[in-house]
C-alpha cells in the first residue's frame, strides 16, 4: 500500500543526536553503553563528551546499577543497549533499584521490534513495553520517527524519574516534522476521522497513515493517533476516540499481550466500551528475514490495519 512518500531515517540516530542536544545544555547528562557504541549511535556523544561517557562492557545488570548510583548524586544517566538485553537481562535492577526507589535513570531500548531483521528472534525484542509498562514509576515513550525520538530524549531529561525510550535499528518513515510539538502524555492526532480510530506507536504510525489514505478512497474516515507515550497514557484522547468514532484498532510492533493494545483496551473497557481489534505480533517469536519481509509476514502493514478496521466496523452498533 503506497501513496504518501516519506523521508526515511532511523530512530536510533534521533536517540544519538538527542543525547548530544542534551549534553550541550546540561553538564549532568552522562551516557553508559555496553559494547555497542555505534549501533546505538552514542558515538556522537562519546566524541564530544568523552568524560561523560562510560563504556561498561557486556554487563547490562552492572550498567543499570551503576546508572542508579550515578543518579543518587546529581547525574542524569542515560544507559543504552539493545532492548532485548537492557530490559531483558537488567529487569530486576529496573524493577527494584531504578523503579521502586525510584531513580532518575533514563533507559534507551535500541534495536527493538521485529524490524531488526536477519539477527532473528533472540534479538527482536517484542515484550519490552509489556515489561516496562508494568513497573510503577516508569514513563514509557515510543517515538514514531527520527525527529520525535530526538525530542523524546530531550523531554526525558525534564521528567524527574525513570524513563524508557524505545527505538529501532532500521530506517523508518519520517511522519513528524522538526518543528512539531512533542508533549509527553499527549497523543498526537495525525489524521482526523469519525468512523474508526487507529491508535498506533512507533513505525506503525506511518502504516496507519497509509491505511487512512486507502480507507478514505472507500469513504471510510480513519482517525490516526500517534500514541508516543504508552505510559502515562493519554486517557482523554482514548475516551474521545471511543465516543466520537465508536471503534478502535491499535497497531504496534510488539506482542499482543501487554503492549499498547492491552493498555488502550483497559481504558476503553473501563469507560466507554466499543469494538476493538489489535494489529500486533500474535503471541509468537520472530524470525530471521529482511525487515520488510518480516513486517509483511507478521501482519504489521497498512493492509492489515485496513482489514482489521473493516471487520471492527462490522461489529459497530
Amino acid at each position, binding site marked *: 500500500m503506497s501513496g504518501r512518500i516519506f523521508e526515511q531515517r532511523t530512530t536510533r540516530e534521533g536517540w544519538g543526536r538527542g543525547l548530544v542536544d542534551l549534553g550541550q545544555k546540561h553538564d549532568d547528562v552522562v551516557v553508559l553503553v555496553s*559494547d*555497542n*557504541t*555505534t*549501533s546505538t549511535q552514542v558515538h556522537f556523544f562519546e566524541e564530544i563528551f568523552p568524560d561523560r561517557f562510560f*563504556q*561498561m*562492557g*557486556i*554487563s547490562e*545488570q*552492572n550498567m543499570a546499577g551503576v546508572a542508579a548510583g550515578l543518579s543518587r548524586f546529581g547525574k542524569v544517566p542515560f544507559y543504552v543497549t539493545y532492548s*532485548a*538485553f537492557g530490559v*531483558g*537481562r537488567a529487569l530486576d535492577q529496573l524493577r527494584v533499584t531504578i523503579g521502586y526507589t525510584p531513580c532518575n535513570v533514563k533507559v534507551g531500548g535500541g534495536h527493538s521490534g521485529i524490524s531488526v*531483521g*536477519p*539477527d*532473528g*528472534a*533472540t*534479538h527482536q525484542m517484542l515484550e519490552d513495553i509489556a515489561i516496562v509498562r508494568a513497573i510503577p514509576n516508569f514513563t514509557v515513550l515510543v517515538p514514531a520517527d527520527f525527529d520525535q525520538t530526538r525530542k523524546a530524549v530531550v523531554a526525558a531529561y525534564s521528567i524527574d524519574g525513570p524513563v524508557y525510550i524505545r527505538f529501532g535499528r532500521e530506517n523508518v518513515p519520517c511522519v513528524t516534522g522538526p518543528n512539531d510539538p512533542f508533549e509527553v502524555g499527549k497523543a498526537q492526532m495525525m489524521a482526523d476521522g469519525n468512523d474508526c480510530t487507529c491508535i498506533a506507536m512507533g513505525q506503525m504510525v506511518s502504516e496507519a497513515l497509509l491505511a487512512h489514505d486507502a480507507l478514505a478512497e472507500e469513504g471510510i474516515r480513519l482517525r490516526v493517533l500517534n500514541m508516543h507515550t504508552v505510559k502515562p497514557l493519554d486517557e482523554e484522547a482514548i475516551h474521545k476516540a471511543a465516543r466520537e468514532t465508536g471503534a478502535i484498532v491499535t497497531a504496534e510492533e510488539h506482542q499482543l499481550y501487554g503492549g499498547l493494545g492491552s493498555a488502550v483496551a483497559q481504558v476503553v473497557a473501563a469507560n466507554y466500551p466499543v469494538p476493538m481489534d489489535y494489529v500486533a505480533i500474535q503471541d509468537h*517469536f520472530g*524470525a*530471521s*528475514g*529482511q525487515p520488510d*519481509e*518480516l513486517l509483511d*509476514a507478521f501482519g504489521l502493514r497498512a493492509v492489515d490495519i485496513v482489514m482489521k478496521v473493516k471487520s471492527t466496523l462490522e461489529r459497530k452498533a
Partner: protein
Amino acid sequence: MMMNGFPRGHCMSVHERWVAGRLRWSADALEQVARDVRCDILTLLANAGSGHTGGSLSGTDYLTAILFHEAAIDPGQPNWADRDFWHVSNAHVSPLIYSVMAERGYFPLRDLLGFRSFEGHLQGHPSAHDTIGLEVSAGSLGQGLSVAIGVALAAKMDGHPRRCYLCMGDGEQQEGSVWEAAMSAAHYKLDNLLAIIDVNRMQIDGPTDKILNIEPLADKYQAFGWHVINIDGHDMNTILAAFEEARSVKGKPTVILAQTIMGKGWSAIEDDYTWHGRPPTKEEADEALLGLDANYGGWWARLEANGMMP
C-alpha cells in the same frame, strides 16, 4: 584385561560403547575439516549479506574438534538419549555452528544458503525451535554455562558418563552470570564439564582490555576452583591433548583458554575487531577463499558434485 579401554566384565552402556568405538579423527584430518568449515563460513556469510565473521573464524578449530572427534553425538539421531552435550553460548558465531553441523551431517550443506533468510531454518542466532540438533536457543550472552551445569548435574544424578562441552566468548566473560555459573560448577565438582573460551582478545567496540578488562582470566578461573588449560586455539594437536587432559581431571570442572585470532584464516582481517559482525562481500569472500586454496565457485561445485544444488 581391558577391552576397548574398559575393564572386562564391565557392562558398557550405549554411551560408553560409542565412546570406545567412536571415530577418532587424526589432527591432520581435522585440520582439513576445519579448512572446509572456514570455506563454508565465508560462503554462507557472503551469501546472506549479514552475520558475524570474526568470532566464527577464531572458534573454528576447537568446535570442529569437539563435533568430529571429542563428543559422543549422532547427527542421525540428534536427540539420542546417551549423547554428550555441546552448546555454543557466544551464539552470534552461528555461521561457525551451522557450518560444523552441516559438515558433521546434521543437515545438508545446501541449507547453509538459507542462513538468516525467512525461508531457511538457520536463524541469525540459533533457534532450537527451528534447527534440529541444537539443545537450547541462544544469542543472549552469558546464559550457556548455566545450562551446561544443569546438564552435568543431571548426568551426575543419573550416574551417566555424559560429558558437557560448552563454548563461550572472551567478551562474554564480562557478563556477571558467567561467574555465578563458574562458582556453581566448581561447587558441585562437575568434572564432566569442559568449558572452552575463545580468547581472541576482541569484541564489538574494540579490544577486550580496552572495553572492560577480563584478565587475568586463568587466575580468575583457578581462584573459582577450576582446572585451567591454556592453549594455542589453532593448533589441532594441542586442542586434542587438552581434551584428553580434561577427561583425566577429577573433582573439578576444566576450562580451556583457547588463545585465538579473530578472523583466523583470512589474513586481511585477522585481529581486526571491526570484523566482529561484518560479512564479506562475494568478492571479498572469493579473495579470502583463495587463501584457503578454494574459491567461491568451488564451493558451489562441491554442492553440485554432491547433487545438492538448490
